[in-house]
């Protein structure tokens, strides 16, 4: 499982089956909150100024983002490419 901390107590993780999990006690207990659309390669998270947990997960379909604490994900960065070098 890939994991990341949003703050010292809030951790998020994405499992091989694409399910997303959250721990609010620094990793002791975990609960499944949602699922991304494809197997993941990386995850990161942050708390916004409204106190909402935001999660980004890179998957085979692109970067998927959740603005509701991991309940629902949408593809924020779809799968085509354009890069300035």
């Amino acid at each position, binding site marked *: 499982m890939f994991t990341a901390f*949003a*703050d*010292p107590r*809030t951790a998020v993780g994405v499992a091989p089956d694409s399910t997303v999990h959250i721990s609010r006690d620094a990793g002791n207990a975990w609960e499944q909150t949602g699922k991304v659309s494809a*197997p*993941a*390669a*990386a*995850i*990161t*998270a*942050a*708390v*916004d*100024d*409204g106190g909402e947990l*935001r999660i*980004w997960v*890179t*998957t*085979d*379909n*692109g*970067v998927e*983002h959740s*603005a509701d604490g991991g309940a629902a994900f*949408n593809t*924020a*960065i*779809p*799968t*085509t*490419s*354009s*890069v*300035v*070098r």
Partner: protein
Amino acid sequence: MPRMISTRAAQALTGVAALALLATACTSPGGAAQNSTPPATRNPFGHVHGMAADPDTGQVLLATHYGLFDVSTEPAEKLSPTIDLMGFAWASPPRPTPATSTPPATPAQGRTCRTLSVSSIPTTAGKPGHRFPDRANPTSTPWPPHETASSASTANCGSAPMARNGVPSRPPSNRWRWQDRLKATSSWRPQKTASNGPPTGATPGHCRTERRC
């Protein structure tokens, strides 16, 4: 204190540039790393090893097989040289506090690299002809000198002998091992000083190279 991200920045992240992400292995069947030049395909990233969202700038950074990319712009921007970033962690830039209201200097954003030790494997690793260092037999290794006298930042290095003759510096804790390597691979010998103590200059471990990627 929790990491905070503005709602506007988070919204901006949802409309950013496109990319392709392939969760493939990092080496070819033959074992050679594919970290030289991205193939001319629609995917310039290879596969992703790590990511970070910067709460201050709204950036989403991807550490990939072909380097560090900022994908929060359209088009995405390649920040680093072509390098296989197998591991990646973002240390958020320091923020002003009430006691120090002066904003910090603009971070390098991944455009400059600093060699902190010589234990890292050069980007040529895995290519034909490359040999990994054999720590058990220093004289048999190619030992590429990453940090040479010509490339090291002399501002902090002074006359530190550890940066001479193309010999990289080492942290003090590894000095004994490095001196063993010096005897085997270099004609350089420590300078004698009046105090017969260690040479003057910066601590060898502080003599680091910073270059533009």
